C-alpha cells in the first residue's frame, strides 16, 4: 500500500516539476524574445540608422524675427511699408501717487499734450488708461527718467512708410490698431496680418517718383488744382507708377484733407476728351467701316438737338482718318462713330473695359459713368470723349490694349516680373499696328508734338475736356491730358498724365490744352524712366524705323477746300 502511495506521490511530484519547468521555459522564451527585440533595435539604431554620433547637431534653429504685419515692397524690393516696434505709454491711475505733478511733468515732456486731459485720465477710477501711443525712443527714455510710479510701457507695432507721401494712394495706410484703412493695406489686410512674407507690388518707386515729380512740377507751373498719372507695362498690365496729386503723408493720415486722400487715378472718373478718338479710330478700322484712306466731311459743325459739335481749330474741309487724329477733329470723330452705330460702339467700349469698373487691387475704384439711354447725341460725343466718364487707370489699360497687338489685360498692382498675363483679344494685330502708326503720327506731326522724347519713338494722343458741373459745361475750366506709349515700333509702356484746371502761361501762349501742358510731362517722364527700365534708344530717322511708322495721308485740301 505504501509503495502504491509513494508511487502516486512521486507522480504528483513529478508532474508539479514538469509544470514548473514548462512555465519556466515559456517565461524564459518570452524574456529572450523581448531581449532579442531590444537587441535587434539596438543594433539597428547604432549600426544602421546612425552609424556614429550625428555629424551635425540637431539644435532647433532660432525663430526668425517677424513683425505682426508683413512688409509691402516695390518690384525691386524697396520697402514701401514696414512695421517697427515702439513703446506706448499707459498708466495705472490707482498707483500714481501724485496725479497733479505727474500730469504737469508729462505735459511738458510730450509734444501736443494737454495737461488737463492727462490729469483727468490719471484721476479716473479705472486700472488702465492710455497716455500716449507710439513714443519715440527719446521720449520713452525721458518718461523713464521722470521715475513716476504707475506709468508703464506696452511694446506695440507701429506702421511706418519710409517713402512718405510718394505712392501714398497705392499703399494706403493703417489705423492706430494696425488695421488697413485704405489702399493695398486695406485690400490685402488679411494676408498682411497673417504674416505670410512680404507683399511685392508691381510699382517701381523710381518710376513713381519721376511721374510724381514731373506732374507736380507741371501742376505748380500751370497752377492746376490736381493731377494724376499712370505708367503701365503693356504686356503684363503691371502698373509701375500711379500718381494722384495733391497727396498726403500716410504716416499721418489724420492730418490729410479729403481732397488729398482722394485717389484721382482710380477713384476719380472724368470725361477724357480727345484721347477717346484713339478708340473711335480703332473701332472704325477693326470693324471695317473705315480704312486709313477713308475721308469724312469736317467742313462745317454738326448740329444735333440744341448742341453743335465744332472743331477746336477747324480745318473746314474733308479729312482722312490720319488727319482726324493728327488735328484732333471732333467733327471727323463724330462722323466716324455715326458710321459705326451705337451698338458697335458700346460693344467695343465694353470690350476695352471702359464700361465696367476695372479689376485693380485697390478698394478705391470708381465705376465709369455711362449715359442711359445711349442716344445718338451720346454716340457722337463719346466718339471724342464727352458723355462717358472713366478713370485714368481704365484709359491707360484700354490704350495698352490698342497698342500691344490688340490684347486686353486687366491692370494689376501685383508683381508679375513683366511676364505676359492671360488676356482677351479685342483687336486684330493689323488694326493695332495701324493704330501705332497713327499715334506716332500725332506726336511726329500733329497736336502731340511736345510729347516727343528723342530716341524713344513716342506715340500718343492729346486730350482736352471742358469741365462740367451741375449747370452743364462751364466753358472755362479744362481737364487736359495726354496718353502716350513708347517705343512705338514695339510698345512696352503706356504713360498717362492729366492736369485738372491748368492755366496757360507765356511759354504756352496762354494755351492750357493737353498738347501744351501734359504732352511735355509725358516726354520728360519717358526720357527719364526709359534708361532706368532698360529701353534702348533707337535712331528715329533710321530708314527701317521710318518705314515701320510710315503712313500715307491723302490730303483733300486742294480739291475740296474751295467748296
Amino acid at each position: 500500500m505504501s509503495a502504491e502511495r509513494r508511487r502516486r506521490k512521486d507522480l504528483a511530484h513529478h508532474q508539479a516539476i514538469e509544470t514548473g519547468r514548462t512555465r519556466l521555459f515559456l517565461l524564459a522564451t518570452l524574456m529572450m524574445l523581448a531581449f532579442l527585440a531590444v537587441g535587434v533595435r539596438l543594433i539597428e539604431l547604432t549600426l544602421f540608422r546612425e552609424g556614429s554620433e550625428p555629424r551635425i547637431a540637431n539644435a532647433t534653429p532660432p525663430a526668425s524675427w517677424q513683425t505682426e504685419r508683413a512688409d509691402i515692397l516695390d518690384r525691386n524690393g524697396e520697402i514701401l511699408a514696414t512695421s517697427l516696434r515702439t513703446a506706448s505709454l499707459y498708466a495705472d491711475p490707482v498707483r500714481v501717487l501724485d496725479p497733479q505733478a505727474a500730469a504737469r511733468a508729462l505735459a511738458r515732456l510730450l509734444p501736443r499734450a494737454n495737461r488737463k486731459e492727462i490729469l483727468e485720465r490719471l484721476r479716473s477710477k479705472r486700472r488702465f488708461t492710455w497716455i500716449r501711443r507710439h513714443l519715440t525712443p527719446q521720449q520713452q527714455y525721458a518718461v523713464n527718467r521722470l521715475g513716476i510710479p504707475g506709468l508703464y510701457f506696452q511694446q506695440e507695432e507701429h506702421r511706418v512708410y519710409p517713402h512718405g507721401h510718394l505712392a501714398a494712394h497705392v499703399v494706403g495706410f493703417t489705423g492706430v490698431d494696425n488695421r488697413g484703412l485704405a489702399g493695398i493695406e486695406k485690400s490685402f489686410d488679411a494676408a498682411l496680418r497673417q504674416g505670410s512674407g512680404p507683399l511685392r507690388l508691381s510699382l517701381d518707386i523710381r518710376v513713381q517718383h519721376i511721374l510724381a515729380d514731373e506732374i507736380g512740377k507741371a501742376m505748380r507751373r500751370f497752377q492746376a488744382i490736381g493731377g494724376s498719372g499712370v505708367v503701365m507695362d503693356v504686356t503684363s498690365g503691371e502698373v509701375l507708377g500711379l500718381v494722384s496729386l495733391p497727396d498726403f503723408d500716410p504716416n499721418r493720415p489724420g492730418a490729410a484733407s479729403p481732397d488729398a486722400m482722394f485717389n484721382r487715378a482710380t477713384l476719380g472718373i472724368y470725361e477724357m476728351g480727345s484721347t477717346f478718338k484713339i478708340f473711335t479710330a480703332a473701332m472704325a478700322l477693326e470693324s471695317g467701316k473705315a480704312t486709313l484712306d477713308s475721308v469724312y466731311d469736317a467742313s462745317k459743325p454738326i448740329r444735333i438737338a440744341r448742341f453743335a459739335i465744332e472743331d477746336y481749330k477747324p480745318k473746314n474741309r474733308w479729312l482722312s482718318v490720319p488727319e482726324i487724329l493728327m488735328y484732333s477733329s471732333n467733327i471727323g470723330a463724330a462722323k466716324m462713330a455715326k458710321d459705326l452705330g451705337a451698338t458697335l460702339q458700346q460693344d467695343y467700349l465694353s470690350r476695352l473695359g471702359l464700361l465696367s469698373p476695372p479689376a485693380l487691387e485697390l478698394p478705391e475704384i470708381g465705376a465709369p459713368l455711362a449715359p442711359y439711354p445711349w442716344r445718338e447725341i451720346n454716340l457722337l460725343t463719346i466718339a471724342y470723349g464727352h458723355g462717358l466718364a472713366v478713370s485714368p487707370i481704365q484709359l491707360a489699360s484700354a490704350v495698352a490694349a490698342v497698342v500691344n497687338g490688340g490684347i486686353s489685360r486687366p491692370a494689376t498692382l501685383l508683381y508679375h516680373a513683366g511676364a505676359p498675363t492671360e488676356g482677351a483679344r479685342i483687336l486684330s494685330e493689323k488694326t493695332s499696328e495701324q493704330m501705332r502708326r497713327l499715334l506716332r503720327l500725332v506726336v511726329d506731326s500733329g497736336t502731340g508734338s511736345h510729347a516727343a522724347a528723342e530716341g524713344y519713338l513716342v506715340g500718343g494722343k492729346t486730350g482736352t475736356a471742358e469741365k462740367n458741373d451741375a449747370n452743364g459745361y462751364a466753358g472755362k475750366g479744362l481737364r487736359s491730358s495726354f496718353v502716350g506709349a513708347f517705343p512705338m515700333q514695339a510698345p512696352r509702356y503706356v504713360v498717362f498724365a492729366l492736369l485738372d484746371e491748368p492755366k496757360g502761361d507765356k511759354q504756352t501762349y496762354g494755351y492750357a490744352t493737353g498738347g501744351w501742358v501734359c504732352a511735355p510731362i509725358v516726354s520728360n517722364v519717358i526720357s527719364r524712366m526709359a534708361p532706368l527700365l532698360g529701353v534702348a534708344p533707337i535712331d528715329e530717322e533710321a530708314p527701317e524705323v521710318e518705314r515701320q511708322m510710315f503712313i500715307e495721308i491723302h490730303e483733300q485740301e486742294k480739291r475740296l477746300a474751295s467748296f
Partner: protein
Amino acid sequence: MKGHFTFLWLLLVAVVCFGLFLAKYKVQSLETELAALNQVILDRQEELHVLKAEWAHLSRPERIQRLSERFLHLQPVTAKRIDTEAGLAARLERSE
C-alpha cells in the same frame, strides 16, 4: 580574483558617471550659450529691420534728387549718349 573584478567594475562605473556628469554640464552651458546667441540673432534681426527702414527713408528718390541737384550738378542721361557696340563704329565714322 573576484575582488579585483568588482573593483574594476566599480571604477568603470565611477569613470562613466563622472564623464556623463561632465558632458551634461557642458551641454547645459552650451544650451544657455545657444539661447543667448539666438536672442542676439533676434535682436540683430530687429536692428537690421530698423536700419533697412531707415535706409529706405534716406534713399528716397526725392531726397537723392534734391541732394544731387544741390551737390553734384548731374543731369539725367539723354538718349543720345546711349548706344550699342554695333552703333559705336557708325558714330566714330560720322565724327571723323
